[in-house]
């Protein structure tokens, strides 16, 4: 038999019982559709995660005061916030695996522009290098403050896109004056958009200013209600929950003045390794430098902790992967169920068509012709199911993208895999019925009622 006759014969046989053929193949359709949808959604979310991670800075390292065990902020007796701006400088100087370094002072307070007010997620005091650490790219408007501005505690800031929207109603903020805790800041630049980070926080809801200004003029200034405890707000919002704790951090009188930049406590240091491969080395070098600077004896625990993005990235990616694999397993099970359905119907079909098989043998069909015919029928059924399932899966992935706003990504591998899978399911589950058909005795088969 030629290939075209085999295909034609199979298609004709399937057409003879079109409703049953369609119902038979439904299991495969659903299975393949599920596989495709799962793979597209899985791929979409993993690539969106990696995009988010790289928007947070893939090489980023965050160095925070306090032991790792207490989550970065320690209030235990004898412990103190020991991270200083000079630590940042030392890291920059002595760690070859570290590229960029920026000290960060955080504040969380209300920001006012004219009659509008807003509490940004992030009010960060840092240096111009912060932008490079975070790989923030160019400003969309205006310019960044300079190292000189940091030294002189200039009351300048740049703002993120969300601030522009919330505080300025979309109009250009450059040159405008905003008040952060009743300190007037001049907006000199607008950051490009970065979107949400891996934890869903809006990275554009940010105000950046020289760290000295935030430290000494905003969080260090007394008289304002929110920062009544001196530098409480500076050492994260947690401190304001425990007003008493602020007594541990007596504000040196000199701190109210901008001049002594050194030895001032900062909230964290953000650094970037020279390359993702250097992250481990960078962590090692930073640890050495800080331990030495903090005069920790061997055996004493670190009084700081270093976190890198790969950790959270891996955690997120593995969760997503696990979900995808789980759903994929379910989809594969449904494919097997579909295959068993195919086998079942093909067995019924062989029994029903016993006389046809006998006749075909009588007019010259060999056992292998019969085997090929039924195997082809099962495989074509599965392939049709696979293709319909493919379209259905694509369609549902697109609906998910449209209505649930999940990221999806079409994948060629998924297409090839699902077509191959359906063909394999057809061959595997079609084989036994086809083999049974080919083993029939023509005389018995012709006599079958």
């Amino acid at each position, binding site marked *: 038999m030629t290939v075209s006759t085999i295909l034609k014969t199979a298609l004709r046989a399937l057409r003879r019982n079109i409703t049953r053929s369609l119902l038979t193949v439904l299991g495969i359709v659903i299975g393949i559709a599920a596989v495709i949808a799962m793979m597209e959604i899985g791929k979409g979310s993993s690539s969106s995660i990696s995009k988010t991670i790289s928007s947070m800075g893939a090489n980023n390292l965050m160095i925070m005061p306090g032991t790792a065990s207490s989550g970065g902020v320690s209030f235990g007796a004898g412990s103190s916030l020991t991270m200083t701006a000079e630590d940042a400088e030392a890291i920059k100087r002595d760690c070859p695996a570290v590229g960029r370094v920026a000290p960060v002072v955080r504040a969380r307070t209300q920001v006012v522009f004219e009659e509008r007010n807003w509490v940004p997620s992030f009010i960060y005091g840092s240096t111009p290098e912060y932008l490079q650490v975070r790989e923030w790219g160019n400003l969309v408007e205006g310019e960044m403050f300079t190292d000189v501005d940091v030294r002189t505690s200039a009351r300048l800031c740049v703002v993120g896109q969300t601030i522009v929207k919330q505080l300025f109603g979309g109009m250009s903020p450059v040159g405008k004056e905003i008040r952060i805790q009743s300190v007037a800041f001049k907006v000199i630049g607008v950051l490009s958009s970065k979107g949400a980070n891996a934890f869903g926080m809006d990275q554009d809801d940010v105000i950046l200013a020289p760290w000295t200004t935030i430290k000494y003029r905003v969080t260090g200034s007394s008289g304002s209600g929110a920062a009544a405890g001196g530098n409480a707000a500076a050492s994260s919002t947690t401190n304001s929950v425990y007003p008493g704790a602020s007594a541990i951090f007596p504000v040196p009188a000199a701190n109210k003045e901008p001049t002594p930049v050194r030895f001032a406590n900062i909230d964290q240091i953000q650094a970037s390794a020279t390359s993702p491969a250097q992250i481990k080395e960078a962590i090692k070098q930073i640890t050495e430098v800080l331990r030495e600077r903090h005069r920790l004896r061997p055996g004493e625990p670190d009084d700081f902790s270093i976190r890198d993005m790969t950790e959270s990235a891996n955690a997120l990616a593995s969760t997503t992967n696990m979900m995808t694999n789980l759903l994929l397993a379910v989809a594969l099970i449904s494919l097997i169920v579909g295959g068993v359905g195919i086998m079942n119907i093909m067995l019924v079909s062989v029994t029903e068509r016993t006389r046809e098989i006998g006749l*075909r043998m*009588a*007019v*010259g*069909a*060999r056992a292998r012709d019969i085997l090929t015919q039924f195997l082809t029928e099962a495989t074509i059924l599965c392939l049709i199911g696979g293709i319909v399932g493919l379209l259905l899966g694509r369609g549902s992935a697109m609906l998910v993208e449209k209505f649930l706003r999940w990221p999806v990504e079409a994948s060629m591998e998924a297409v090839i895999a699902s077509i191959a899978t359906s063909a394999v399911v057809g061959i595997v589950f079609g084989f036994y019925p086809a083999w049974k058909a080919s083993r029939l005795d023509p005389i018995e088969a*012709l006599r079958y009622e």
Partner: protein
Amino acid sequence: MASPLIQLNGIERTFHMGEIDVHVLKGITLTINQGELVALVGSSGSGKTTLMNILGCLDRPSKGEYRLDGEEISRLSNDGRALVRNRKMGFVFQNFNLLPRTSALEQVIMPLSYTASGMSDRQARERGKELLRKVGLGERMDHTPSQLSGGQQQRVAIARALVNRPPVLFADEPTGNLDSKTTQEVLKMFQDLNRDEGITIILVTHDPVVAATAKRNIRLKDGLLESDFIVESPSLPQEAHA
């Protein structure tokens, strides 16, 4: 004209039913020449169908020799026998054995798909149409079995049996499911095919009226030849029921 087409020598067929052996054919020796029209008769259970299955290469004898065209075929493999059936034999069955929901034309050309003839699809369809016209169904090529009468269905089956131009046609009770009028049509067709194309036809029947239309009658009884005679003047089917 009188060259032997089929030579049986001491054909036996035994079925093993558990402990018991059923001897159905107990030694059949006969020769059928090319161009004969033979009726195989005998009472029910005498072994006609069993013999027919062996002649038609659907079954193997337990003992004995079977030469077709001088070639010993009783020891052929399954595939070898399938090839012989495809090239040299046509089958007509009592219950027509047409494929459901399949057009008359498709039925007729179906055996060609198992023939390595190199016939193109178009050639095959031409051949099918020609045969359907010959059996008087030129207008019903697209009809499926459910749209055809019993006689028409059997004529489709005859066209199918002829598609590979076999030298011999086997028909087991071909008129068993037909009324008397269509029985005559089918018998007439056999006579014409035998006379005009020289096709050897062997038909099984228990009906003496049908047997009387053949040129030779072979009678079986309990698995043995009871009689074998030439019909002096085979009746025309019309006369048989006149």
